[in-house]
């Protein structure tokens, strides 16, 4: 008896589920689905949850304005849990099961690499909002964060020309972004006449906390009589103990400035900023930049997240730009079909939050302003330097022997890695 | 032993390569003595558990070892079975096997079986499986993996089952047996190993009088075919089986002789009854 009831109840549940699925399918026809692929748990949740909220805010706003092509946008949020294989699984789920028109997602390079084949195979559309090492241009991905030439190289230029740095420490966490960036910077510095003995390169593991030895080495390296600067690609959690150790060993920003590429407002809001004051960061956006667009964005963000202390940061701006570009492209193509949108994307222009206009280039990267800021005690940045105009993102670095002959152009060459020497487009022929 | 031979030995120990050739020969009792313990000393943390202990067991003998707590009875068994290495002294099984160079399984294969104080049978296994595990034969991994028991081994197990009166419990999990039955099963496992020398630690602890009686019969029936060394507190039991008794005290032999001789020895009386 009991068993039979159980079975009946099971059947009932099934029926309800089927009905719900049918209903949601009917509902789906009236909306455009937007996938959000950011970790909401695990180690990357700290950074990525904010980006999920940013996309949700942008969608809500767009819907208030009447949606896109007369249809409402419907967010589909999944949690890849900071687990790289799971990123691929969830991406496939978004593209195949949920049939989303576009995905905003990923933070780490490894997560992007993990989903890349999925997007290419299923012809999806991904907006990737974080500064990265470059060396990639996929037909299906738009890179709205900075390439190395939009962050690292201008930062080094600033140190070299304005601060007068002659000796260089390239310190990074041992993963692909610092490795590549430092390879590029090393080649760049050498091309500017910096000698081998004036470059010190150091790699540490994720979450490194015992910086005594390395900071002491930097101090020694910096006492050789030439102005010394540190270019830091140290990641996330390892930064706090690093800066603390710098402070404790009495290395001030005035003596040995550290310019970081992974320390932004969001990261600073979680730490004691005292030891960081005066050190530098290079980004394409600072919350402190005083423009009406930015003020409006901050206000909207704080209202949406219901917290008037919340900060904004560079990857958030990248999502704002990416989202606005996608909306424009869809309207231009009058369709959400991926191939049409991709074709419409190149050349689209939307305003930056910090002034100027971001334009999508044929290599699927953006033009961006580059700003250098000094950390303030309140966790914000004082902009101390800014590029004259906008810097176009370069997918393939000119300073790496493997990639200097490679070019990405999805308009005329229809290729993400065209080798100008061999006149070949290898690998990424999806047609 | 130099490094390379130690490495090779270690390798053989683990991989079982050459296990057969390395198997120690059974105790050579041509001189009538099966176990020689000479000047054995063991100390833990400065406490001398065994102090220049010297003891001989004859082939086919049933020997009882008595002694107050801490006299070193269990430690002595540990030394014989290779669990504890002595600080000094020598231990030979027959004339040809130096026990101090062998590991526990090698000693077991050489022909020394041990029953523990607390009955330790494999509780998750059936009675039958317990005996199968113990039965003499090739115990290298490939043989146990590939081939079932041969008929000779099966017959032997049946005999043992009969000896320890567990025929009708053969498929019962050993953990379900009564305390006394576990003791017998363990003795049965000893027998299945077909050892020359049996070390039996407190076989009747916690048994009913009937069980004690049957255990005494069992042990007596074993003597002659095997050498048996029984450690026991129960003086009645010792009296019922003992021919020769050794008294241990503070790690060495205090007295040795027939039960009556020993019981009348003033030193023994002093140790047992206090000052």
């Amino acid at each position: 008896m009991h068993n039979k009831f159980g079975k009946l109840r099971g059947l009932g549940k099934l029926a309800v589920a089927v009905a719900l699925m049918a209903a949601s399918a009917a509902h789906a026809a009236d909306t455009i689905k937007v996938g959000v692929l950011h970790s909401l748990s695990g180690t990357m949740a700290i950074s990525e949850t904010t980006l999920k909220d940013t996309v949700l805010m942008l969608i809500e706003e767009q819907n208030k304005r009447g949606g896109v092509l007369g249809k409402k946008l419907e967010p589909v949020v999944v949690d890849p849990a900071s687990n790289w294989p799971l990123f691929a699984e969830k991406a496939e789920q978004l593209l195949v099961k949920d049939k989303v028109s576009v995905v905003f997602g990923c933070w780490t390079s490894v997560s992007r690499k993990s989903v890349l084949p999925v997007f290419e195979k299923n012809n999806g559309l991904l907006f990737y909002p974080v500064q990265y090492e470059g060396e990639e241009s996929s037909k299906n991905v738009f890179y709205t964060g900075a390439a190395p030439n939009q962050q690292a190289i201008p930062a080094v230029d600033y140190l070299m020309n304005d601060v007068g740095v002659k000796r260089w420490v390239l310190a990074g966490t041992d993963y692909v972004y610092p490795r590549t960036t430092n390879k590029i910077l090393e080649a760049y510095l050498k091309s500017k006449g910096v000698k081998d003995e004036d470059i010190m390169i150091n790699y540490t593991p994720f979450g490194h906390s015992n910086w005594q030895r390395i900071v002491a080495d930097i101090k020694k390296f910096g006492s050789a009589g030439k102005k010394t600067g540190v270019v830091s690609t140290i990641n996330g959690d390892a930064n706090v103990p690093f800066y603390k150790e710098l402070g404790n060993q009495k290395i001030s920003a005035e003596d040995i400035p550290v310019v970081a590429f992974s320390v932004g407002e969001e990261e600073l809001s979680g730490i004691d900023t005292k030891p960081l004051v005066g050190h530098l960061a290079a980004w394409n956006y600072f919350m402190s930049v005083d423009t009406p667009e930015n003020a409006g964005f901050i206000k909207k963000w704080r209202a949406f997240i219901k917290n008037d202390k919340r900060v904004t940061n560079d990857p958030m701006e990248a999502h704002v730009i990416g989202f606005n570009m996608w909306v424009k492209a869809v309207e231009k193509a009058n369709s959400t079909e991926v191939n049409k949108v991709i074709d419409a994307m190149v050349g689209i222009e939307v305003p930056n939050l910090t002034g100027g206009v971001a334009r999508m280039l044929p290599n699927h990267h953006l033009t961006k302003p580059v700003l250098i800021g000094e950390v303030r005690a309140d966790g914000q940045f004082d902009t101390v330097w800014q590029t004259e105009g906008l810097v176009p993102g370069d997918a393939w670095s000119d300073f790496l022997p493997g990639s200097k002959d490679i070019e990405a152009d999805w308009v005329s060459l229809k290729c993400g890695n065209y080798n100008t020497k061999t006149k070949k487009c290898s690998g990424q022929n999806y047609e | 032993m130099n490094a390379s031979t130690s490495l090779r030995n270690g390798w053989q120990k683990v991989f079982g390569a050459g296990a057969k050739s390395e198997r120690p020969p059974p105790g050579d009792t041509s001189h009538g003595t099966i176990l020689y313990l000479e000047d054995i000393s063991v100390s833990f943390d400065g406490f001398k558990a065994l102090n220049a202990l010297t003891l001989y067991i004859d082939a086919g003998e049933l020997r009882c070892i008595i002694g107050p707590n801490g006299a070193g009875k269990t430690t002595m068994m540990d030394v014989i079975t290779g669990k504890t290495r002595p600080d000094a002294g020598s231990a030979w099984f027959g004339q040809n096997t130096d026990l101090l160079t062998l590991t526990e399984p090698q000693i077991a294969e050489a022909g020394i079986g041990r029953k523990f104080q607390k009955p330790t049978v494999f509780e998750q296994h059936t009675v039958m499986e317990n005996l199968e595990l113990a039965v003499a034969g090739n115990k290298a991994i490939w043989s146990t993996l590939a081939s079932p028991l041969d008929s000779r081994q099966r017959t032997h197990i049946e005999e043992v089952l009969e000896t320890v009166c567990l025929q009708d419990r053969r498929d019962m999990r050993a953990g379900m047996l009564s305390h006394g039955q576990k003791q017998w099963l363990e003795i049965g496992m000893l027998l299945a190993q077909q050892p020359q020398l049996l070390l039996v630690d407190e076989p009747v602890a916690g048994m009913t009088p009937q069980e004690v009686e049957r255990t005494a019969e069992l042990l007596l029936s074993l003597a002659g075919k095997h050498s048996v060394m029984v450690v026991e507190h129960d003086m009645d039991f010792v009296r019922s089986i003992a021919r020769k008794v050794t008294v241990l005290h503070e790690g060495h032999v205090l007295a040795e002789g027939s039960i009556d001789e020993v019981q009348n020895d003033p030193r023994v009386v002093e140790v047992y009854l206090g000052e």
Partner: protein
Amino acid sequence: MKLLGCMMSSIPGVRPGSLLLVLLLAALSHCVAASEAPSFEQALGALATSNFKQKERAAGELVGVRHANTRAVLDALLEGNLYYRKADKRVFIAVTQEAGLELRDALTLQSAGTADAADFSKITTNNQLRKTLRSALASFDLTDPDAQVRLGAVNEMLRSLDADSVSILRARERDEKDESVRQAIRTGLAIADLNHEDAARRLSAVEQLKGSLNPEVFNRLTALVSTSDDGSYTEPDAKVRSAARAALAGIENSRSFYSMLETLFFGLSLGSVLVLAAIGLAITFGVMGVINMAHGELMMLGAYTTYVVQLIMPQHIGASVLVAIPVAFVVAGGVGVLIERGVVRFLYGRPLETLLATFGVSLVLQQIVRDIFTANNRPVETPSWMSGSLQINEAFSITYNRLYVVLFMLIVFVILQWVLKKTSLGLKVRAVAQNRAMAKSMGVRTEWVDALTFGLGSGIAGVAGVALSQLTNVGPNLGQAYIIDSFMVVVFGGVGNLWGTLIGGMSLGVVNQFLEPHAGAVLAKILVLIALILFIQRRPRGLFPQLGRAAEG
């Protein structure tokens, strides 16, 4: 001289180094503003810009005019308290208040009421400007009545020594009465003398500098003995060269000695962190046989406790860390008792099961913390008495936070030893550890002792968390980073032996730090792990095994 200074101050785009010279010249020679030089008011107005080059120039001019308010304005600029009104670019010294900015006119230093911050723009500084400002302010201090201030000023000037500032120092040397200040000036002058055209002067300078550990001295001496591209020596005089070589050899000797001391200290401080993290585990694991995988999370709780204590007493950051120690002990210890009562007590004698169950507990604790404090790291401030370093000499200094961690670890260790060896709780703990049934029959309430022992080990973990909050991030993942290391330390040292944990942790720290310069941080860690695995296989019971029958079986 006068003319030069005043002229240079009006040259646009002067380099920071020469700007310093200008400032100093101005300070010493009471340069009167020439007619073409800008007035104080003009220079002040020129600060109201976002261009840093222009700000630097304006700051130089401010010093040049030697106005009575120069110092106040420069101080305000350095502190970030200088603003200008967007409407008319008028410059104010301002402090942020509830109602807005509380203003003082920079020209007159008169109060100018309060105003809405939105109408004002802060005059920001950058590193170069701040460095220049500090040097400029130092020049004011060179004649300060307080010898300490003068010493600071001289050292500030030595940070960027060039030929011009040397002459200023030389001038000051004659008037200087204080011995330590004179000594500092002389070192600077001797460094300068290394470039003197007279070989005898160079030789005596080398002689004077031969014991100095100042890195600048080392660099200059190295330059003396090096060859230029065509193979000829930069130092023509052979005598000076050999003296420099001898001096260098001496300096290098003591430098390598101190660098060894430094590595040793790094090792000891790393070891102290390991010991602190492991010592609570040594109790729960070593004494009770419980594998507490939530140990790291208990440390995390201790670190968060520090954060909360700081939130409660924001005015007393210095004391907050000390207050946090007992609080963290109670919090983590309390949670420990809960874990023991709720989970562990059902699992005594089954260490592998305790491992799994407490791992589950650790996940729950992490998530609780995430839900309360969010996944973001929390800022825990370092009190000022724990920042900075103890300068033993110019080649060797010890950072205070690490020093305190070493001391703190020793104190915790001593107290723990005392508790276990001298108190009745300790006696009972040891009794239960050795023979539970016997202890019980003698009237020891074993359940109570179990809970307290576990609480003690957990409380120590909390205390370790307070120390960690001063060294690393306070976030939900804090515990995970230390759990494997802690277990390795306990196993390496020998289970059930606090001394083993101490020596084990310390030696692991030292070995790691001596390996790191050769192998790099990651490889050093891997090597230590592999060495540990091999060591445990050679000595399964650790460095200091428990002896006797109890350890068998």
